[in-house]
């Protein structure tokens, strides 16, 4: 029983971070319809910004987090302006190829700048875990869970309750009509991509200190993010959050009670099942066609 409770706690902590990974991608992939292969690199970028700001500039851990988010926002805006804006209107394959190129180039850049040896970020949290009866959890992971929850709520409110969010949704539903209604469409494209990117960087900045930081760390994160987005339905923030927790639960129970050798396979078995039986994702809203 205590082992089961520990698995549930692990699931909560892991699910929170998966959800954070998922919502950034669902904005870009789901709403903008750009297959964003740079999502993992932006995750890596956020983690390295944490390392630089905390260890090389000596800034406080809690101040470094927003800096990493801002850096992710700027890099995302730059990618949109330089790579995606000239390609607007071209087919999805062209954009996808360019994004794959950007992913490889940026990952190689990270390797060139920081080398392949993993870095680790020291945190102000105590090493001794919080013990609650039979289960225990690290303070850092709890903080990450809380920060992720906050970011998820902020993003949800931004998309559903603000004028910018309204303009975003309008733009990606019908680009021409939104433009006629006075929406600055170019600005919306850039800000959506930048917000999605800053969420990826935030996930990296939060999880980099939990794990270790190395140039390819984003690859696995990106694979999971795509899985979560497909699970939750494209463009659905609530779906991405629930998808994140489902993936975490499948992995945790799969590793705990089936076989740890197939841990990563568990999540993908669910995805295959979802794609077969409900291809639009578990929580897809009815989509407007045409």
């Amino acid at each position, binding site marked *: 029983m*205590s*082992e089961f409770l*520990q*698995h549930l706690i*692990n699931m909560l*902590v*892991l699910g929170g971070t998966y959800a954070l990974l998922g919502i950034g991608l669902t904005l870009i992939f789901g709403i903008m319809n750009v297959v964003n292969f740079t999502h993992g690199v932006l995750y890596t970028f956020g983690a390295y910004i944490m390392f630089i700001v905390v260890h090389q500039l000596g800034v406080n851990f809690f101040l470094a987090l927003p800096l990493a988010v801002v850096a992710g926002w700027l890099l995302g805006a730059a990618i949109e302006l330089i790579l995606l804006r000239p390609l607007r209107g071209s087919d999805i394959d062209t954009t996808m190829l360019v994004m794959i190129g950007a992913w490889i180039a940026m990952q190689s850049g990270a*390797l060139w700048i920081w*080398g*392949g*040896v*993993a870095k*680790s970020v020291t945190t102000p949290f105590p*090493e*001794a*875990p919080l*013990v609650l009866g039979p289960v*225990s*959890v*690290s303070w*850092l*992971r709890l903080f990450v869970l809380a920060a992720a929850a906050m970011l998820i709520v902020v993003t949800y409110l931004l998309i559903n309750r603000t004028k910018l969010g309204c303009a975003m949704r309008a733009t990606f539903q019908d680009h021409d009509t939104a433009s006629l209604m006075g929406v600055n469409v170019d600005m919306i494209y850039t800000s959506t991509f930048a917000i999605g990117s800053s969420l990826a960087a935030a996930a990296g900045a939060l999880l980099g200190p939990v*794990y*270790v930081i*190395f*140039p*390819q*760390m984003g*690859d*696995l994160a990106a694979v999971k993010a795509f899985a979560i987005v497909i699970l939750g339905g494209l463009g659905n923030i609530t779906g991405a959050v629930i998808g994140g927790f489902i993936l975490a639960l499948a*992995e*945790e129970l*799969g*590793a*705990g009670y089936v*076989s*740890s*050798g197939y*841990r*990563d396979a568990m999540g993908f078995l669910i995805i295959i099942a979802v794609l077969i039986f409900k291809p639009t994702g578990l929580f897809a809203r009815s989509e407007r066609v045409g």
Partner: protein
Amino acid sequence: MTWTFRLAPAIALAAALLGGTADAQTIKIGVNEPLTGAFAASGTYVVNGAKIAADEINAKGGILGKKIELVIEDNKSNPTEAAAVAEKLITSDKVPVLMGAWGSSLTLAVMPKLMEYEVPMVVETSSSGKITTTGNPYVFRISPPSAIEAAAFKGIVDKLELKKVDFLIINNDWGRGTAEDFSKMMKEKGITVGVVETMDQGAQDMSAQLSKLKGTDSETIIVTTAVDQLTLIFKQAAALGLKKRIITTGGSQNPDQIIAQAGAAANGTMHLTTFLPWFPDKTPNPEATNYFIAEWKKRGFDFAGCTESFRGYDGIRTVAAAIEKAGKAEPAAIKAAMWDINIKGLNGDIVFRKSGPAGKESGQSQPNVYLIEITDGKIGMKTL
């Protein structure tokens, strides 16, 4: 425009001549290591150690009157790439001998290429038993296979009062081979073997496996993987309140890096290792060890990397000794000469003994294995 046409063949000729002379002046050694991917840290250390050996040999005039040249390729921690890189080194760079490929799965992927092109390779790190028992006569291993590690460990299991052990292993040939060889040894000693948990080589979150291990009635966990995953395991085990004894195998622990990155979580852990840079005087070859450590520090590398990089240093010195003995830089001659070398490695004498099926034996040297323990962020030696 006419000069371009006249110049072009001249340049081509000059390039061919220069290329030709460069070839004749150096002896190439192919180095096939993971410089990116899951084992990037370890592979980079091995390459840096290899460079120290090459520079040392070249400073003393090289071998057979020629300088040696390392042709270094990245196998990306990926077996498919490792085989492709070996093929490229042999066919395009025309290296007569290789060193590689760090991981057991990487080395096993390269081995058919050695058979195909009849080129020998010194295996510097891999520990899966399969490498020297499947009948590949081009393989010469200087690292201990997990059976040697298990045999060395056998002497201390009574003192450690092991009763029941679980395993947490990397899910590849290295991890599975270790679990097999150690389980066999444990059972002979009357120790119960509990569960064997695995993790993907790129996995970063092992909480699920550790939660399961926390719930079993074993008192010890044998862990096999490289430094980055070990760091994460110690941190995550501490976060879960897992208080069992952890003993790691494989010699790719870089204990100083673990202490630096896992902090207090590393205290109380024990590690089977193959080099003692902390106690140079206790190594089989103190003079060479001191030289190597001094050179490593002089180049500004992290001291933590010593436990890994010495393999590259010994590997290249082994290759160089074989070329010298062969008297020519040709694969068949080097392969034959491997059986006659006897050099003082940083971890014992490197002399190859026959291993595997008769008629197509691989070479295996018998390096030392040590057990160290981390206490209060310091490394101490345990006698085996």
